[in-house]
């Protein structure tokens, strides 16, 4: 169907634009569902990006690189956990500090890797399936991280809403005092959630430096961490909507560039605003039902837990 073939490279680009957002957002969603607001997503993504790039450059193994990214993001998240969960520091301030720390630390570590390109992580190429026109490259020609992002969204959704452990996590996020009085370790569960969020953000960053633009450049996330944070809120903490939001945002970002390249007569500054505007509007419209917002937003988010007695 030659009519749709022009769409394929656009969709492929949209997928790459959305994937880092999906990872960061789904990880932070779990963290926030447990009641912890970790604003350090940008910093965790960056340390993940530099860890992945450094590992891939030094060892040549992309699997090790992804694991290193998860570890780096998780490590930063662990520091955040110590400060906010054990030492009971203010979560907002600590998260912001984490971002600054991550930006600086990644720049420091990455100094030796600037200007060194690597090969992009290999895309899947299944003989026969990938060659199907239009759907082939889209469904069967992605790199492993893209498939992983979808798996993670499904896993998180299943975990939160279909397992007891997920219910406990949500309970901790909705009412930590009640959860504590029943006997659940609020701090322990929050630590795990924070670590998961850090690992996912790290992998989101790794996607940038391994697949999106296979290089290390300081501050290469360029604000994507903040976008992920906003996506979670506008998606009212629902994993499925986070995926929709990330693809909407990534999609419109790409489409507006195409519109410019095609000569559309709209000022580029307006087109640059579109992804933000459209994503906010659409998600707000979808989530208008107040009772559903209350059902999904973790009531204790950002509140410090002081175990009573």
């Amino acid at each position: 169907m030659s009519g749709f073939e022009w769409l394929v490279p656009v969709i492929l680009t949209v997928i790459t634009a959305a994937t880092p957002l999906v990872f960061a957002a789904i990880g932070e969603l779990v963290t926030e569902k447990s009641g912890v607001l970790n604003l350090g997503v940008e910093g965790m993504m960056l340390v993940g990006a530099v860890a992945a790039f450094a590992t891939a450059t030094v060892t040549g193994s992309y699997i090790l690189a992804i694991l290193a990214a998860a570890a780096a993001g998780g490590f930063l998240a662990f520091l955040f956990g110590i400060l906010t969960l054990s030492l009971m520091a203010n979560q907002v301030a600590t998260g912001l500090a984490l971002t600054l720390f991550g930006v600086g630390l990644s720049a420091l570590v990455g100094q030796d890797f600037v200007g060194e390109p690597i090969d992009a992580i290999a895309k899947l190429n299944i003989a026969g399936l990938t060659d199907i026109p239009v759907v082939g490259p889209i469904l069967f020609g992605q790199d492993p991280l893209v498939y992983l992002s979808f798996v993670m969204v499904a896993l998180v959704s299943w975990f939160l809403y279909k397992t007891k452990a997920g219910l406990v996590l949500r309970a901790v996020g909705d009412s930590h005092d009640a959860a504590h009085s029943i006997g659940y370790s609020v701090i322990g569960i929050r630590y795990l959630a924070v670590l998961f969020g850090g690992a996912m953000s790290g992998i989101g960053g790794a996607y940038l430096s391994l697949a999106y633009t296979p290089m290390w450049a300081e501050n290469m996330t360029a604000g994507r961490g903040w976008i992920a944070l906003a996506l979670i809120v506008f998606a009212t903490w629902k994993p499925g909507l986070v995926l929709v939001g990330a693809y909407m945002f990534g999609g419109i970002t790409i489409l507006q560039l195409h519109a410019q390249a095609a000569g559309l007569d709209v000022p580029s500054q307006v087109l640059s605003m579109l992804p933000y505007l459209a994503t906010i509007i659409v998600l707000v419209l979808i989530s208008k039902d107040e009772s559903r917002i209350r059902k999904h937003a973790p009531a204790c988010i950002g509140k410090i837990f002081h175990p009573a007695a």
Partner: protein
Amino acid sequence: MNFKNIAGLLGAAVVAGGMLASTGASAEEKIGFVYVGPIGDHGWTYRHDIGRKAVEEAFGDKVKTTYVESVKEGADSERVIRKMAADGHKLIFTTSFGFMNPTVKVAKQFPKVMFEHATGYKRAENVSTYAARFYEGRYVVGKIAGKMTKTNIIGYVGSFPIPEVVRGINATTLAARSVNPDVQVKVAWVNTWYDPGKEGDAAKALIDQGADVILQHTDSPAPLQVAESRGVWGVGQASDMSKFSAKAQLTAIIDNWDTYYVERTKAVLDGTWKSQDVWGGLKSKMVEIAPYNDAIPADVVALAEETRKGLMDGSIKPFAGPIKGQDGTVKVKEGEELDDGVLLGMDWYVEGVQGKLPKGN
């Protein structure tokens, strides 16, 4: 002598020694550099920092350079520039257009400090401006692009719609169409100087819209990387980016600030510094062309070299008439040429550029 006396004498000796040492150290001038991006951008800021290192190498102990990277244009930059001035820096280079108003504002409050603002147009007794005629480099590149394109579409990743960027687009278009009248130039604006992800996306969009030569006025090698992976041509921006695109990079436009920075530092050290406006190009070596890709045919290389030499000796003028605007009207008549004043405020496209020029910053 008891212990207290010995300790007192030693302390005095240390303080005296320290004072002597610091008077020796205060003979060195502090030179400051304010960068809009990271040195690791491998582009614009990277080349400015090479200029800084040239200053250090040229003057050794006589100067002490400091730099601040990734300073956002706007209120934050004012703070950084003011702190540098207050910290005893004698000469401060502010290396981005958006630092213009903060530089002028701080300069008024620190009349003994000298400022060099890159790519701006506001001067004062202690504020100089300097820029490079990058458009000369674009003109050479445009001829190569015009010859090498097979789809007759050149893609341009634009940062902000300011005159400097528009000049580059126009110079490229004029040059390309002078050797290939069917060429169209498509522009995608990313509204940032540096964001590898967005720059790469813009390059992808342009390629998907038919471009097979990618030019950029943004600071990272991402567009070239995309060009390499998609098998089209690209041109390095501000520095040689062939590491990222061995096959795709036709050539690069290299910013060379070394000579100028050393010269101005010397002027400060000698006490002969005066405010001036310098707009150097290929002739003064502020702009250089990187080695040509082996894949470029010999006759195209010859054309490029001829153009480069012609620009250097003045026989080729990029903005000499006849030039038609995008709307078809004659903007420059045959025999006339645009002067620097018009070029500095350029806010219209020449014929051959697609799309509408957004209102600039």
